[in-house]
Each structure stands twice: as C-alpha cells, then as structure tokens.
C-alpha cells in the first residue's frame, strides 16, 4: 500500500479516537445532554470500511454512529453541535448523538432502535438499483442487530434482488451488558449464518485497519459488480461503557482479563507500530498530526459551544413537509 494511503488511514483512526476521547472528557461538564455511545476501540472497522467506498456511496448506522459518520466524511462541527443540542447541529438539535446525518457525505442517517436501519440501507440500495444508479450502500450493525427479525427479512430481499449492500457487522461480543452467550447459541458464527441466505460472507480482524480495508474492498467490489449483497463481520471490542463516557468493567459483566487482552489489540497502537516499523511514521509526523487534529477539535468544540440553542419556534417545524 502506498505511503500516503497508509498515513491517511492512520490519521483517520487517530482522528476518531481523539474526537471521542474529547467527548468523554467534556461529557461530565453536562453540556452534552443526550446519551452517547462511543466507538473507542472500534475505530478500525469504521475507517477500513468507509475507506473502501467511492464518492456517491452511502451508509447508515445505529445507536453508535459517531465513527461511521466521521469516517464517511461527516461534518465534525455539525456533529459536535448536535451533541451539544445546538441549532447548528446536523439535525438542528432534534436528533442528538444517536441520529446523526450528513447526506452530502453519504451518511444517510442513524437510528436508536437496534437493527432498524438495516432494511433502510437495503431499501436505499433497492431504490438506487431501480433508478439505475451505481451505488453501494453500507449498513453498519452490531452483533445484536442480527437477532432482530428485520435483519433476516431485509437480508432475504437483498439476496433476492441482488442488491449492492454491504452489511458491515462490528462484532464486539456484547449487547449492552449481555454477552453473546445469553443471546445466540454456542458455536454460532454470524457471517456463516448470513452466508446461508445466499450472500457472500467475509470476516476478519476489525482492529486491523488494513485488513478491514482489504475485506471491505472485496465486499464493495462484489456488491458493485451486481453479484448481490455481502456480509462482512469484523471482530472488535468496545472499551468504555455501553452508553456514556466512563469505563464499566467494575460492573462485572465482562472479565478484566478479556478487557485487557482486547486493550492490547488497540487498533491505533497496532497500526502505529506497523507504520513506525515501515519507517513511515515517526515522532515528528505523529506530533504534527495530533496537533492538527487537536486544533480541528478545539475549533469544533468552540463552534458547538458558541452556537445558539435552537429557536423555540423550530419546535413545531419539520413535523410535516411544507411546514418550514
């Protein structure tokens, strides 16, 4: 892979990490008054998958959408302002953290109901196919989303119509504090189950950004060529609490041993090691990147905090079309 591509991947990973660490740091100020689900530890899957897309491709996500939105190129200022509930937020403050959208960047929405955007992503691909638009649509989902009926209904239709959809499943082993063991039978391999519907299935290390990218490229190429949907399962792990800025290992729903093992597999540190070894990245470049991103973030936080709250008049707008 070219030096510039690799450095860019690293930079994207670092940016996601720093954005969410900043959110975690600022959250206790109680100015972001909405639930936040952070993707810290899961960045490589988002970056790898989105880096495989072309302009004009779309994606949708669920309750944990920050990384997907940003990896698609979603506007950082508008996301921060949305978390702060400001008029300049990507939904004008009406959505909050779980409902990000940036249509210009191809991020077509996220919703708080588990699995509900899966059929929508399939539908976006269906609509595009009907209109003859060559577009791939990525549906970001978690390991719990495949337990919902809509996943299976939508997957069936996607295969039936050979729709250009990539189901990008970030398997982080948990749904809130419930491990896979109480939700799916022992031995279940999610992507194999998906394959049984007749779609192509791929799987790999979601903490390895190059592997995620390589798999996503295969998936996207397959989908774009008209062969139908692909299920891409990426193994990863959420570091912090399910919802909120803190750590929750004290609750005892997962072991410290497991947590520490995954922490060692930090997608960011792993890639940094790779790039340093290849002599592509040194302290100087890293320092510069960090400084750049920090400046961008400072500006975004300032933008959000300085933005006005939504005008009370907007409460009743957007309920229906034509009402401003």
């Amino acid at each position, binding site marked *: 892979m070219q030096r510039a591509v690799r450095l860019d991947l690293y930079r994207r990973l670092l940016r996601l990490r720093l954005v969410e660490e900043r959110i975690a740091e600022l*959250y*206790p100020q*109680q100015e972001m*008054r*909405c*639930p*936040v689900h952070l993707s810290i530890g899961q960045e490589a899957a988002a970056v790898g998958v989105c880096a495989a897309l072309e302009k004009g491709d779309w994606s949708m996500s669920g309750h944990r959408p920050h990384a997907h939105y940003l990896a698609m190129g979603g506007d950082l200022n508008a996301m921060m302002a949305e978390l702060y*509930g*400001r008029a300049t*937020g990507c*939904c004008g*403050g*009406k*959505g*909050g*953290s*779980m*409902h990000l959208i940036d249509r210009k960047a191809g991020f077509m929405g996220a*919703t*708080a*109901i*588990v*699995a509900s955007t899966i059929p929508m992503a399939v539908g976006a691909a269906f609509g595009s196919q009907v209109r003859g638009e060559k577009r791939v649509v990525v549906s970001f989902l978690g390991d*719990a*989303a495949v*337990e*919902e*009926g809509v996943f299976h209904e939508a997957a069936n239709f996607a295969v039936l119509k050979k729709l250009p959809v990539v189901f990008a499943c970030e398997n982080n082993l948990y*749904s*809130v*504090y*419930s491990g896979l063991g*109480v*939700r*799916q039978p022992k031995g279940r391999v999610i992507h194999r189950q998906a394959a049984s519907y007749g779609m192509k299935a791929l799987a790999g290390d979601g903490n390895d950004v190059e592997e995620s990218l390589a798999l996503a490229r295969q998936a996207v190429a397959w989908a774009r060529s008209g062969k139908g949907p692909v299920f891409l399962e990426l193994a990863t792990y959420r570091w912090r609490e399910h*919802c*909120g*800025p803190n750590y929750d290992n004290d*609750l*005892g*729903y997962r072991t410290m041993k497991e947590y520490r093992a995954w922490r060692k597999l930090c997608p960011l540190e792993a890639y940094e090691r790779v790039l340093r070894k290849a002599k592509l990245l040194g302290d100087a470049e890293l320092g510069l990147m960090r400084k750049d991103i920090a400046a961008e973030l400072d500006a975004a936080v300032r933008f959000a905090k300085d933005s006005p*709250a*939504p005008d*009370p008049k*907007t*409460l*009743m707008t*957007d*309920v229906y079309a034509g009402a401003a």
Partner: protein
Amino acid sequence: MKFGEAVREALDFCLGADPDVVVMGLGVPDPKGVFGTTVGLQKKHGAKRVMDMPTAENGMTGVLLGATLAGLRPVMVHQRLDFAVLAVEQIVNQAAKWRYMYGGRQSAPLVFRLITGRGWGQGTQHAQSLHSWFAHIPGLKVVMPATPGDAKGLLISAVEDDDPVVFIEHRWLHGVHGDVPAGAHRVPLGSARVARAGHDVTLFGVSYMVLECLRAAEFLAEHGVSAEVFDPRTLRPFDEAAFLASVRKTGRLVVADTSWTFSGFSAEAAALAADKAFSALKAPIKRLGLADCPMPSTPALANLCYPRAQELVDAAWSVCGKAGPAPRLPAPTTPLDVPDPSFTGPF
C-alpha cells in the same frame, strides 16, 4: 421504599408465590438490572425463570405468548416502551385477541413492563408514552402506577391477572419514595385513587403527571383553590364510577397526560366527563399533554414539550374563573431535563 424497589419487590413476590411466573427481557439479569428493578432476581429464583433474551422483541413476545399455552405466566420487560413497538404485532394482533377469538378457550396471562423515558436528550425514539394506543385495544389491560405502593400492588395484580396487561412505568418515578406494604399487597386493576381531596377542580394525572398535579394542588391551596387530584392507576379497565364521582363533585376537569393530547387518553377522559357528567360541568374541560411533535433531543426544545405544575395551575385558575393572572410557582432549581439533581445522564 423507592418506586423501582417496589417493582422489584413485586416481581420477587410473584416469582416466589407462583413457580409458573417467569421474567424475561434484555438486560434483566445484567448488573444494572433494568434500573435496579430486576437486580438479584436471577440469583434468587434461578436462570430458568429469570433471564435475558436475544434482541428480538416481536419474536420473543410470541414465544412468551406461546409459553402461556404450557401454563407459564411471563413478565416481559422492556427498558423503553419504544422497543415494545417492535412487538406490537404479537401484543395487539395476537395476545389481545387470544381469549376472544378462540371463544374463551385461550387465555394470555402476560405482563409487559414498559418504561417510558424522559429527559437527558432521550429524543424521538426513547421517550414515547404510547399508553393510549394500548388502551385503545379491547383485550388489553393498561396499568400506569404513580406511587411505589401502587407499583407493587398493581404489578402483583397484573401478574395474577389472566389477561395481557401492559404495565407502564415512567422513568422519572423510579427514584420516588413512598410507603409500600410488605408481603402480598394487591391493588385491584380498574380501581382509581383520589390522591388528594378537593372540591373546586379535578386534576386528572396520568402516571408521572400525578406528581405534577399534586404540586399544583398544593400551590393552588395556598391561593384559595381546592383541587382534587385523581389518579386513575389503570386506564383499562377504567374506574369510571370514581372518575365521574370526582367530576360531579368539583364540576371542573383538567386532564394532564404524559403523552400527546390529540387522539390520546386525555380525550377519552374528557369525552367520558362530557358524556356522562355534562350537567355537573361548570366550565369547559382542559387538557394538557406533550407538544404535538416528536420529542426532540436537545433540552432547549424538549423542555418546551412537557406540561408541568405551572401549566396545571394556569389551567385550574382559568377553569375556576379566577380573576387576574394565575399565581406563579417558584422557578424550578434543578434543570428541567432531569428527574432530580442526582441524575447526571447518560441514560
């Protein structure tokens, strides 16, 4: 005892009293135990009867409905009412019809514990209070307790009831304290409660709005208005006799709902009063509910959506024909999007 603990006590009682009772829901056995309401139950009553489930609301509702065929009496728990919307097919098309369409040969002794969210940016899909939907359906019972004692007493009655019961808990009630009788405390479904007696106006509150009604009534008393606070406790079956008695006594009615007014339960209450107590009414009926839009996330807008004690005071003042502007309650000292100062988000 807190409301949330009372819910837990009721479940504990039912699990202990009847081996056919099972409790299932996402996160039921997890360390946080659905806001504390299921903590320790799995340990005490076993993983066979108290359990987590796949993220599959509609399917699992059908599974539990099917389990009633074998004699189980399941309690299904949803951390947000909005998640049960996925299961409306099984609840409305199936469970609600079960007894009737089989000519009485089936029974669906199920309880759905649904928690209504509010505050801290819960937004469009985590703060809906859709009790009016459920109350619309013959075959379903709908319970909305406002006190810890009623939470326990009504939940026990709901579990022991032979029909499907939608039991709706307002998230902001979970931390509220109150007296809870020990042991087998039952409050019959379909029995209302006068939470505070008065003679000038009836303030009808649904769920959390009972608390706002009580605040308003207390304040109104200082200003020469005697408000009666009526807590229906169950919306279906509805205690029409108690409701009409209150309206006939005061001659004035203000209904405060936790949801939208349009086509909602407040319309049912107003219609009943107009239909059956018309001659007693001295003033038009007033209804208070959410702003008629989906719930926005930002507190700047969400705070505008909820009626509070002040709006109740204003409404009571107006229906009582009082001169001049209504007296103002002291401004709230805690932010409007949290139930109490101890709540710091995020869920």
